[in-house]
């Protein structure tokens, strides 16, 4: 039974979502809302299905049960053409950047414009340079993806994600593997783009400090369930053991340090098998 009331300002609403991979249950009847104009973070330990949730919202995966509505449209009941029309209004920043490696920076940012619009090349040039200027990499337009640092690649991918002026951007682990300067730049960019372009942002991350600094609302996932939700302040002061373990980075707790195994002594004393 769904006890969640959809807030009037909700852009994405996930209801009673269940999803499994093989016999592993990734999500078990969860409901979430992502409000328009806000930065909502999905946090949780590695392997809890945060990226999977983004792929479900983008219609790349199908849920076993439940619905996901984006801007009032049920993503998984849309026809292919309708889904593609919806995706034109979404931007997604992949963890790896997912830049097309046979194109330079300029062509990567121009790619969605060339694919979906009939704008003259002079107009495309202006738009591409504006997007590159927004991420501070206008001077890198002639570089190939293999000449970029990890942080630069993500900023270029961000410029590409905003090329079609989307209503929402999905960020998949934007801070992973970044040095402090690149991290600071990305945090600043996500916040400023969200404000200046009037976007809605969903950030999947396990970086507690930087994500909390810019998020308006946080969901903490673990074991297929939502174990905590609220504003960053509420999450910081949550009484949930799960949330506290995650926020403080404790090695053991509800999320165990040890992967499930048989008794340690029995395991050491057993013989005859190589493993």
């Amino acid at each position, binding site marked *: 039974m769904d006890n969640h009331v959809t807030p009037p300002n909700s852009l994405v609403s996930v209801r009673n979502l269940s999803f499994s991979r093989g016999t592993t249950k990734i999500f078990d009847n969860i409901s979430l809302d992502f409000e328009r104009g806000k930065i909502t973070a999905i946090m949780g330990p590695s392997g809890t299905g945060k990226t999977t949730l983004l792929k479900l919202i983008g219609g790349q995966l199908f849920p076993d049960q439940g619905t996901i509505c984006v801007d009032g449209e049920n993503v998984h009941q849309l026809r292919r053409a309708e889904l593609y029309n919806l995706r*034109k209004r979404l931007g997604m920043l992949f963890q790896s950047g997912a830049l097309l490696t046979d194109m330079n920076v300029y062509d990567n940012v121009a790619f969605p414009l060339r694919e979906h619009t009939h704008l003259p090349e002079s107009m495309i040039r202006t738009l591409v340079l504006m997007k590159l200027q927004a991420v501070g990499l206008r001077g890198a337009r002639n570089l190939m993806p293999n000449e970029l640092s990890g942080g630069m690649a993500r900023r270029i991918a961000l410029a590409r994600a905003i090329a079609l002026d989307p209503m929402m951007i999905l960020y998949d682990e934007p801070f992973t593997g970044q040095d402090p300067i690149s991290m600071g730049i990305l945090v600043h960019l996500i916040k400023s783009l969200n404000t200046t372009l009037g976007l809605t942002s969903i950030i999947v991350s396990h970086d507690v400090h930087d994500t909390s600094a810019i998020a308006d609302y946080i969901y903490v996932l673990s074991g297929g369930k939502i174990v905590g939700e609220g504003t960053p302040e509420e999450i910081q002061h949550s009484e949930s053991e799960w949330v506290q373990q995650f926020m403080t980075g404790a090695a053991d707790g509800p999320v165990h340090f040890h992967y499930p195994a048989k008794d340690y002594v029995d395991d050491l004393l057993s013989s005859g098998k190589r493993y």
Partner: protein
Amino acid sequence: MTAFLEYLGQSTRISFTKLGRASYFLLQILAGILSLLARPRLLLKQLYSVGVLSFLIITISGLFVGMVLSLQGYYTLSDFGAEESLGVMVAASLVRELGPVVSGLLFAGRAGSALTAEIGLMKATEQLSGMEMMAVDPIRRIITPRFVAGLISMPLLAALFSAVGVIGGQMVGCGLLGVDEGAFWSQMQSGIDFKDDIINGVIKSLVFGFVTSWIALFEGYDAIPTSEGVSRATTRTVVNSAFSILGLDFILTALMFGEH
């Protein structure tokens, strides 16, 4: 015994599931051909990387195969005093069989493996997912142009292989072994039939190009997105393409030349 039957059943089910996925994949590729006509640049770029970049290996291999054929043929034919038939022997062998088959095998090794690795790595680096999220169909944008390029390139490469092979045969036969040049060319001209030999050879190479491109692209698209997965997919492309080319060659030869 039960375990063996279980394994057999499971393997069969997995194979048929994969065949189903491959067939659906092919249908999606074919459905994208019309839209490709509106963007010939995509095709031209792939014709270069699939076809033009295979030019060198095909030319050199064709030359040597033709030279060896001529050498071997001369020794056998001269036993019967029929060395003047060397031209027709070399040309028929190349146009009917060796041209399509050897160039097909080389195409699978050179272009097929490259296609699988490229698509597999695009999958592993989320480029294909990224395209989907940008509302761009990766099959139409990436796969179909490569498939059509393979289909067009293969008959041209096979024709090149045969032509260079004939020149190699002539160089060895007439230049080194002393076969009369007039007899070499005239016997070839009268012995090779346009429909029975050349057209059938072109049909074979078209079929091999179709199958090899399909296998290569599907293996890349279906690869497990890890370095080991891409490596295995690349190996499967070369092995499966070679088996398919040789098996189909037998079937096509039986159908084309069976009534003679």
